[in-house]
């Protein structure tokens, strides 16, 4: 099989006929409530702080495994994959499922996302028949593998990443299979937490089961089962009706992973083509690059969730279930690509690789179709994992410091992007408290603030990213991994908008032992006194920054969102501070008009400056990373300053299409 297609199916209207529309609506909401109740319970009982930060999802599936309701607060990165897991369990145990059984799996190669996302499924019975499946999916803090937290950016195969759980029975007729549970937990770094999460998730599915039984008691089994079908048909109707109101056509967009570590330098393209015909939407990912030599690959489940999450952003009020998925088809293209990787390719970093790029490519496509919801490229999750021995006086334990930041979302049609917002990974994904981190790890945060100038300049500015600087204190044997992307495939703007800033982790910046690790680093030893600094990207700018109202630029300067220096360079706005009143900033209108004229005349030419020459000026400290990505279109290794010629060539081509071609008046 070279292609996995999600088949288009007809609406099962004979079921819908049996239900009056009000009962259908009442039950559709009740199913959502049943799923949300699972989330309520899981949040209160989980062990993984990653789950507690809302990296989880839940679903109620019908007897075919199709999703009837998905939780209203689920993390974006897992949406659209719960039915794959339900079907995997139903297929694996067909004819051998009893009341009181519970199953577990985390297999990304059968439609899961990555090994940490462990799914616990409880088939629901009524009158002796299997009528539904309740599912709770949560990101465990660790599932074994070579690296703490089971995130090893250098892994190329699954064996180094973590424990792969194909569908396994974990409760049999209500009895917990402790031997199986122990086998799974023993393969993780924190067996107690693993079993704690397993129990919490299994108990959460019981809450959903109880709700379904109550609804059956009230409305009857036939009605409830009919409503499972109608809930999906309803969503499918909504999506198809809206799509049919849009013009038919084809669109395509690309976004890029930084590079393939097993190849040379050069951006790795992820290609999304989309066609609207009649009332259906058809995606085609077949033009994407072959799988790469890091963990930034995606199996089809992760790519599918990206298609769903990206599309859903343009249908924000439509509930998610298999009815939504039926209105879309996805051609993942041949197996073995970066978006359709197969066993045993490493896929744990799918969220920072293909997931993010597919979502942002879909943002580009739908921004053309629905300009009223247009949004430029937005920040995605970056993730530090740091572990070792806590050598502070009171503790002899291992510590696990996993940290992620918020970042900027893209500029919008008529509106600046949101500052420091959780990533497109899922905007419910909460940041941790610095004070709690300092209590539990020998790590002190020195800076955790918005990063001035990080929002991509535009008529509507991209939201600001953050900067974080932490220092290791009393620890031993500490090892660091950094899982991110976009050190080279920098977030760019839309419709003439400008770029944000590159990702990358620095150790002891501006000192003699400065080291630059870039966006991916695996198991790097660090010692007490080391300081780690990293930015999170801002959003891409929307529209030509020279069209931004000077007054808005001045307000940004007053708030320190934009520096006086970059106000001039990026916006051509000359802001001066009053000598008498330090709180008073003014726009110099005459100087601004002159500066904007000058930039209009010269900016296209700067993008053709000899890149070697630009790289040298960066090395010499004459130019900053902002100058390179915004004014010169040059990408270097930000640590050494070495030019990346192939990456730069492609980056300039991207800027030509997304920025320069939209600059008017040159």
């Amino acid at each position, binding site marked *: 099989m070279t292609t996995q297609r999600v088949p288009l199916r007809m609406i099962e209207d004979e079921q819908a006929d049996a239900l009056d529309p*009000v009962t259908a609506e009442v039950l559709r909401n009740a199913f959502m409530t049943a799923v949300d109740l699972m989330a309520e319970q899981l949040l209160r009982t989980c062990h993984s702080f990653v789950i507690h930060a809302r990296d989880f999802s839940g679903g109620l599936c019908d007897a075919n495994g199709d999703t009837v309701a998905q939780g209203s607060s689920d993390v974006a990165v897992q949406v659209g994959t719960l039915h794959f897991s339900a079907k995997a369990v139903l297929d694996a145990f067909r004819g051998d499922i009893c009341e009181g059984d519970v199953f577990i799996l985390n297999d990304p190669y059968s439609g899961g996302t990555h090994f940490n996302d462990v799914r616990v499924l409880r088939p629901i019975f009524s009158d002796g028949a299997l009528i539904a499946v309740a599912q709770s999916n949560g990101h465990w803090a660790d599932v074994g593998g070579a690296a703490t937290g089971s995130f090893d950016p250098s892994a190329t195969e699954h064996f180094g990443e973590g424990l792969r759980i194909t569908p396994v029975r974990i409760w049999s007729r209500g009895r917990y299979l402790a031997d199986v549970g122990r086998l799974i937990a023993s393969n993780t770094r924190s067996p107690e937490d693993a079993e704690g999460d397993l129990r919490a998730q299994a108990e959460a599915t019981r809450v959903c089961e109880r709700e379904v039984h109550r609804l059956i008691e009230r409305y009857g089994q036939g009605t409830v089962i009919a409503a499972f079908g109608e809930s999906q048909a309803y969503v499918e109707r909504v999506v198809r009706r809206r799509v049919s109101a849009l013009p038919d056509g084809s669109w395509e967009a690309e976004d890029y992973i930084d590079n393939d570590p097993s190849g040379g330098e050069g951006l790795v393209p992820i290609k999304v083509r989309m066609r609207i015909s009649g009332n259906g939407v058809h995606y085609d990912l077949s033009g994407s690059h072959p799988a790469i030599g890091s963990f930034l690959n995606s199996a089809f489940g992760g790519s599918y969730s990206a298609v769903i999450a990206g599309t859903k952003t343009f249908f924000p009020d439509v509930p998610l279930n298999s009815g939504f998925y039926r209105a879309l088809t996805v051609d993942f293209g041949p197996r073995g690509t970066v978006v359709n990787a197969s066993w045993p390719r490493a896929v744990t970093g799918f969220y920072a690789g293909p997931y993010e790029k597919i979502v942002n490519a879909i943002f580009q496509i739908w921004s053309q179709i629905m300009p009223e*919801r247009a949004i430029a490229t937005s920040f995605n999750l970056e993730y530090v994992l740091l572990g070792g021995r806590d050598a502070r006086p009171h503790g002899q334990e291992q510590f696990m410091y996993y940290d992620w930041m918020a970042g900027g979302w893209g500029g919008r049609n008529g509106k600046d992007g949101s500052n420091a917002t959780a990533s497109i990974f899922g905007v419910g994904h909460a940041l941790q408290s610095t004070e709690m981190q300092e209590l539990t790890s020998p790590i002190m945060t020195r800076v955790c*603030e918005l990063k001035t100038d990080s929002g991509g300049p535009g008529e509507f500015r991209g939201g600001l990213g953050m900067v974080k600087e932490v220092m290791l204190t009393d620890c031993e044997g500490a090892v660091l991994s950094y899982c991110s992307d976009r050190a080279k495939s920098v977030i760019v703007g839309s419709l003439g908008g400008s770029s944000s800033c590159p990702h990358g982790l620095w150790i002891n910046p501006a000192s003699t032992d400065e080291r630059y690790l870039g966006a991916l680093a695996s198991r790097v030893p660090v010692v007490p006194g080391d300081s780690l600094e990293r930015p999170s990207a801002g959003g891409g700018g929307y529209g030509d920054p020279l069209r931004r109202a000077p007054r808005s630029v001045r307000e940004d300067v007053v708030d320190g969102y934009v520096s006086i220096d970059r106000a001039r360079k990026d916006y051509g706005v000359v802001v001066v501070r009053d000598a008498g009143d330090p709180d008073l900033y003014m726009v110099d209108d005459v100087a601004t008009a002159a500066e904007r004229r000058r930039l209009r005349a010269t900016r296209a030419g700067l993008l053709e400056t000899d890149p070697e020459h630009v790289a040298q000026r960066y090395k010499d400290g004459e130019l900053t990373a902002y100058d390179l990505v915004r004014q010169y279109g040059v990408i270097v290794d930000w640590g050494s300053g070495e030019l990346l010629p192939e990456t730069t060539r492609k980056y300039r081509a991207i800027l030509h299409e997304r920025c320069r071609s939209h600059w008017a008046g040159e």
Partner: protein
Amino acid sequence: MALRVAVDVGGTFTDVCVLGENGEAPRVAKVPTTAESPIDGVMRGIAQAGADLADTRFFCHGTTVATNALLNRAFPRAALVTTRGFRDVIEIRRGTKEDLWDAYKDVAPPYIARRDRLVVTERVDATGRVIEPLDMAEAKELVDTLRRRQVRTVAVCFVNSYVNPVHEIAMLEFLRAELPDVAVSISSAVLDEILEHERFSTTVANALLSPLIGHYAGSLEKRLAESGYNGRLHLMHGGGGVMTTQAAQKHAARLASSGLAAGAVASKHIALACGYENSLALDVGGTSADISIVCGGELKVVRNWSVDFGHPICFPNLEVLTIGAGGGSIAWVDDGGALRVGPQSAGAAPGPACYGLGGTAATTTDAQLVLGQIDTSLAAGSQLLDVALAKRAVSKIARELNCSLEDAAVGILRVASANLADALKILSIRRGQDPRDFALVAFGGAGPMHAVHLARELSLSAVVVPPHPGVTSAFGCLLVDIRHDFSAMFIRNAQAADPYEIESTFLRLESHARKSLLEDGVEPERISMQRFIEMRYHGQSRSMPIAVDQPVRAIGGLVEKFHVQHREEFGFNHEHGDVDLYQLSVSALGIIEKPRFGALSSGTGKPIEPVGRRMVRFIEPKGWLETPVYSRSDLCPDAKVTGPAVIAQPDSTTLIPPDWTATVDQMGNLRISMDVERQAR
């Protein structure tokens, strides 16, 4: 004679409830809220209820002043002073959004803009050690800036100040000396807890509100005194207690949820008086419904209340879930052909179509009017409703659904009720409870309209409708105690925790609390303390409060209690799991003597005559029924009304469908339950 007077100011109406000493029925009044100067409405309401303030010995007030200030962002110029490197804690927040999918719906901006967030060099580590001293030269520059900008109120929020507040205190003293007219809130005094975003956010709200509350409470006190009141002013706070004016200035942000708590407190009292330890409260007004829960006789306290998502006020707050489902909620048919009700509301203007004020969208009230469930004249004739306009609005929905007018109206009410039912389920499940074990206390103008249908949907055992459903919140204001909450972080493994240290921490909190209550003028013998330890399994991120009812000498019993409570709430526990302590807290009450409620005199025993009859279509069963309409004022204790029936009163309407019966108890409540024969079927 000594009266107790409560005035609860809501968005639309100011409600007044007056109780005498001898258990006679309360006097109530309802006047329009005067948004511009709410105190005028307060005084007018008191006059209308006929309360003489010179005869009043207890005055309690629920107010939306703080809530409105946060909603409208009408504050004096404010600044945040914080640790260098942490300027944006209240803007970065937890990074989350309320609307997960709509990329155009933004979180509200922080209350204090970045330009007014000033940093100073200082640092304390997680153990409380000073890493960098407070830089007084920078502090001095900062004071110049505050003075130049004419800042009126300042929040001082330093990282790790919950372990060691030394720098916050130093900054407070410096600001007081340099800027004596500027109000200052420091985070370690406002909310002495770990988690910088939540503590900073609460402190910022407190700083914004304290000048406003101080001014408002002062003006009201003056007006009350001028009218002869010589007692203290008690202000209702979100924790379900009251505070004096002095305490309110210190913890002004506790008043932000003032309006929500009183209804919950009233429902608890009513349910307990009726013998129900477990109850759900449903308060349905014009635009929204407030839902709360009492389990085992206790209201639940939560710590994540906010006016704007992302800017929490983390004082202990009674758990009240507000959803957009009220009498003015608008019905609509969506793209998928599904009938939806709310959350958009027609509000007070234009209001439901039947008000004839220009509204054309069908609302819940219009559907009720079409079905004959409410009379064409409301509030003793002050509001006349136009059936033709209601029919016209609902018939638009009927056309879209391709069904009859009647089916459309019934559908609207079923969907509206289902929204309420889902919210009631969420709230009870959060407590790990089965809703079937609960009684429903229904109030607000529209609560008693939905109550019996909801009871049927959720298989609830009984419904209680209090005598004056429309002024229940004001009634709740008369049932409260002075309440302060104090807490201390206590993050330890339970095995390693020293019981002596726990006990001494509790004693310290209690002595602090006692001091506050004495300052409030509470007599020592009226002070009552409740202790709690927050506990969790090692590795869990949320903890659970375990009540501590005696001096702590050993930890084992408390750990055992935690295991049991975890099983009760969540259905499982880890019997051999490692347990951590998280926080110790004390709720300190200054007990206010409660009014006595005498039994009402029973009626003559003669059957009660309906005041009218009309055709009513209930949600269930199908079909129109000739239904008697009773006046609530005719119903004395022991009166019995069997469904179908409508019970009308100026501030509300109660529906009794067939197979249900209402009886009036000695307190004047309607007690509604399903007929026994029907249950057996």
